[in-house]
């Protein structure tokens, strides 16, 4: 995958704690435009928390997150504006249950971005077509499978035209046969050059989609490496141990 090298996001010494417990102990990470970062690590290592900090869902206690000249870790961030440019997809494939598929997708573009309805609708339909769900545009979430809902959740985030997409274990709650259809959508985005930070437990997927693998443990980054390097010769013992668990 090619990256233009332009730095989009620079995280420096990011700290986050819940009360006394430090869950992010000084994270340093740079993300370039078009880059796909995959974060791996045992549960409780802080990888989901890191994503949530980047979307303003968790307040942070220290460090810097530079994004277009502003510090997202500092005070006075206009998160409403930032969230339109940093989209997020969650683990529990939730849609707004009282709205149709199109209603879900268009809520942000129409109410937050105040876009022209016809133009936004056209984009929503194009995106739905791309994930193979155009004919479900008037369905309600209860009529959809988990995999379909998660693809629509991705479209909902994409329809805001974000610059960066954050994926927080988006296949972890899905039935195995639905994992593929969701991962394919994300692979498609990678091919189009979308900048993404992906937290996942799908090792094969991580290897094929990631430009860099970030391995975290106990609130710190232990290792950053190219996928080939990471999966064949991890530099740290903890990464090796983590990978061993995934081999029977």
């Amino acid at each position: 995958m090619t990256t233009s090298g332009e730095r989009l996001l620079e995280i420096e010494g990011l700290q986050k704690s819940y009360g006394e417990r430090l869950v992010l102990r000084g994270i340093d990470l740079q993300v370039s435009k078009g880059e796909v970062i995959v974060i791996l690590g045992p549960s409780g290592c802080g990888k989901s928390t890191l994503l949530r900090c980047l979307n303003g869902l968790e307040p942070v206690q220290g460090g810097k997150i530079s994004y277009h000249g502003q510090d997202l870790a500092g005070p006075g961030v206009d998160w409403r504006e930032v969230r339109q440019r940093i989209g997020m997809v969650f683990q529990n494939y939730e849609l707004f249950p009282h709205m149709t598929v199109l209603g879900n997708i268009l809520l942000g573009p129409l109410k937050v971005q105040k876009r022209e309805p016809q133009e936004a609708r056209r984009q929503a339909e194009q995106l739905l077509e791309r994930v193979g769900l155009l004919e479900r545009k008037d369905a309600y979430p209860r009529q959809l499978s988990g995999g379909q809902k998660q693809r629509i959740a991705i479209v909902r985030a994409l329809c805001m035209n974000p610059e960066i997409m954050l994926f927080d274990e988006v296949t972890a709650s899905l039935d195995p046969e639905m994992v593929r259809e969701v991962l394919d959508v994300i692979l498609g985005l990678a091919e189009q050059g979308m900048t993404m930070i992906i937290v996942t437990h799908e090792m094969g997927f991580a290897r094929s989609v990631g430009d860099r693998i970030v391995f975290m443990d106990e609130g710190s980054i232990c290792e950053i490496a190219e996928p080939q390097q990471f999966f064949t010769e991890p530099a740290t013992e903890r990464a090796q141990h983590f990978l061993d668990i995934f081999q029977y």
Partner: protein
Amino acid sequence: MNLDWKFIEDSLPLYGDAMWLTLKLAFWAIIFSSMVGLIFSVILYYKVRGLSLLIQAYIELSRNTPLLVQLFFLYYGLPKIGLHMSEVTCAIVGLTFLGGSYMTEAFRGGMEAVSRTQVELGLSIGLSRTQLARYVILPQAFAISIPSLGANVIFLLKETSVVGAIALMDLMNVAKDLIGMHYKTAESLLLLVAAYLILVLPLSVVLGWLERKVRYAEFGD
């Protein structure tokens, strides 16, 4: 049992007028209670400091005192400090004072049943707090709480039956009067039950229809 049909026929206009009054009181009480409930539940949900405490005190006071006592207070108590209201206003204020707390609790229960992840979803697409309430929380809360809202509506309509205590000629009071004056107990009570059923049954049907409509998106048929 022989019913005095002549008496029934002669009493119909009295019951008709009383039905109107009962309906009018219930209508305004339901409208105002719902408005109070909507506003107060949003304040409680967002835990607005100071106001939340006041509203909680109001809820306790409203739910733990009988409507009759509340009406006496409004009708006989307030004039002592120079606040006079007509009987109809008193009844509507009293019913709203009672119904407001029930509506608040019904809405609040619904809002709190909307999951934290729904809130985060809304935030993650850039909705403001007001938009979050307007487009995400309240519509879902409404669908969840509509059965208890409906129960409150019928409850309020039936609670109008105590306004006779402040000299209003509602259905209950008319029936009591007729029994007292003519000893036509069976006829008067029959008309009373019929009148309440005529008011409440269509309301139940409308509420049932509304419930199906509002809940269709989330829960299907």
